[in-house]
C-alpha cells in the first residue's frame, strides 16, 4: 500500500510507525515534495499477516539475525492460547487443593493465575454475539474486545462493549 499526494503528484514516503495498541500499528507517510503527512492505522489482521511474512513494515534498519523470525514466533510453553475463554482459563485445581496444606505455599495462588492479566467476564449474550464472528478471526476479536473492556473500565463484556468495539474497528 502507498499513498499519493494529490497536490504534488508524488508518492508519499514511509516516515515512522508506532504501536497504537497490541493489535494495531499507526504508520505515518509524508509527501516528499510538500511535506504533507497522513497516518494510517492498520487492521489487526493486516498487521498479523505482514509480520507473518517475516518482513518489517517500513523496512529494516538492521539486518535480520539468523532464525530471528522463528525464535520470535515460537510461543513459550505454558502461555495460554488466544482461544481460551475466561472459564477455560480458570484452573480447577486450587479449589481441590483447599485444605490439603498446599493452599498456603503459594502453589494454589499460582495455579489460579492470580499473577496473570485479569480476565473480564462475558455476559451470555456477548458470548453469543462473539459466535457470529467468523471462526478464523474469533480469537482475535475475543482478545481485542477484552482489551477494549479493560482499557475502558468495563467490569464485564456486555452488549455495550460489543457495540462500542464494533464501532471502533469499523465492522
Amino acid at each position, binding site marked *: 500500500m*502507498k499513498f*499519493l499526494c*494529490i497536490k504534488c*503528484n*508524488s*508518492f508519499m514516503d*514511509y516516515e515512522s510507525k508506532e504501536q497504537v495498541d*497490541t*493489535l494495531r500499528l499507526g504508520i505515518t507517510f509524508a509527501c516528499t515534495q510538500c511535506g504533507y503527512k497522513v497516518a494510517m492505522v492498520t487492521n*489487526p*489482521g493486516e498487521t*498479523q*499477516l*505482514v*509480520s*507473518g*511474512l*517475516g*518482513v*518489517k*513494515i*517500513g*523496512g*529494516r534498519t538492521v539486518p535480520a*539475525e*539468523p*532464525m*530471528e*523470525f*522463528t*525464535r*520470535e*514466533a*515460537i*510461543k*513459550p*510453553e505454558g*502461555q495460554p*492460547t*488466544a*482461544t481460551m475463554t475466561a472459564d477455560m482459563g480458570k484452573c480447577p485445581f486450587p479449589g481441590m487443593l483447599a485444605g490439603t496444606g498446599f493452599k498456603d505455599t503459594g502453589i494454589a495462588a499460582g495455579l489460579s493465575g492470580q499473577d496473570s492479566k485479569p480476565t473480564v467476564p462475558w455476559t451470555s449474550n456477548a458470548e453469543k454475539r462473539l459466535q457470529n464472528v467468523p*471462526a*478464523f*478471526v*474469533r*480469537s*482475535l476479536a475475543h*482478545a*481485542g474486545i477484552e482489551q477494549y473492556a479493560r482499557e475502558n473500565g468495563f467490569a464485564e463484556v456486555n452488549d455495550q462493549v460489543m457495540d462500542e468495539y464494533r464501532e471502533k474497528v469499523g465492522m
Partner: protein
Amino acid sequence: MKQGKSEGRTITEVVKDLEAQQKKNKVVNPVLQQVMDQVTAVQTRMSRIKHKIAVMSGKGGVGKSSVTVNLAHCFAARGYKVGILDVDLSGPCIPKMMGIRDRALKITAEGALPAVGVNGIKVASMELMLPDEGSPVMWKGLWEDSAVWRGTVEMSVIREFISDVNWGPLDLLLIDMPPASSDKPPIIAQMIPELDGAVIVTIPSAISQFIVKKSVVFLNRELKIPMIGLIENMSGAICPHCGEALELFEDASHGESPLQQMGLPLLGRVPFDRRIASCADHGRSFVDEHPLTPAAQAFRIITDSLQQLIEARRPS
C-alpha cells in the same frame, strides 16, 4: 475537491508515470526489498550444497523419516558430507532418530549451526529449537485459530530454516518433507533452488499408492518438480522367528504399481524390520548396526541408484 483526479490527470495516469520513474531510478518498495533479500539469502545458502533431494510422500505414516535417516547413513558411509533438513514442523522426528534431541541449534552471526549426529550427519529441525521433548510447536500470535495466518508463519519459518542454517561444506542435503500433497511440500520444493529432485516413499497398499499418485501428478506435471524415483517401504517382512518372508499387506502384489506405470522408476523395496524402528527409537544407525539384513541391503541398493543419478545429473 476533484475526486480521483490530480491536476486534470487520472490517478491511474499519475501512478503509471511515478512507477515508471521509480523503475528508472531503481527505487524498490521496502517490504518488497525484504522479500527479495529473503530469496537471495535462500539462493546463496543453497548454492553451497552440491546435491539436494526431497524425500516426500502424499501420505503420512509410510516411514519417510526413517527412510531419510537410513539413506543419510548410507551416503555418509560412502564419504559424503550429509545434512538432513527436517521441515516437518508439527511432527519433527529426525533429531530423535539421530540421537541428538538434546543438541539445540547454535545461533551464531554466520547462521544457525546444525546439530551433528552419528557419522557426522548434520541435522536442522524445529525440534532442536524447542525447550524439551514434550514441547509441541506453537506459534505466538493473536490469530492462532487462523489456518491462513498459521500457514504464513510456518512457511516463513521453513524459509528461514532453508536460508539461515549454516551447513558448511555439504555434498548432499536430504529434505524430510511433511506429509500431505497439496499444502506445504510443493511450496517448499519450489523454494529450494537447483533441487535434484524428489524421492517418493510409499507402502504396498492400494490406499497409499492412490494418494501418493495424486501428489506425484501435482508435483511433477503441475509444478515441474523432477521425480527421481519411488521407494516402496514396508515391502513385506522377515519373520524374526523362522526367517520366512511374509506380506504385511494382504493385497500387495509387488507388480508394477500405478506409480511405476506413470514412468516413475522403482529405486527399491525395503522390507519391514522391527530393528529399524528400534534403532530409530534409540537414535542409532540401523544400516550400520545390522548391515547384513535384507532391509539394510535394500537401503544400499537404493543409495547406489541415487548416487549414480545425482552424480550424472550434476557432476560435483
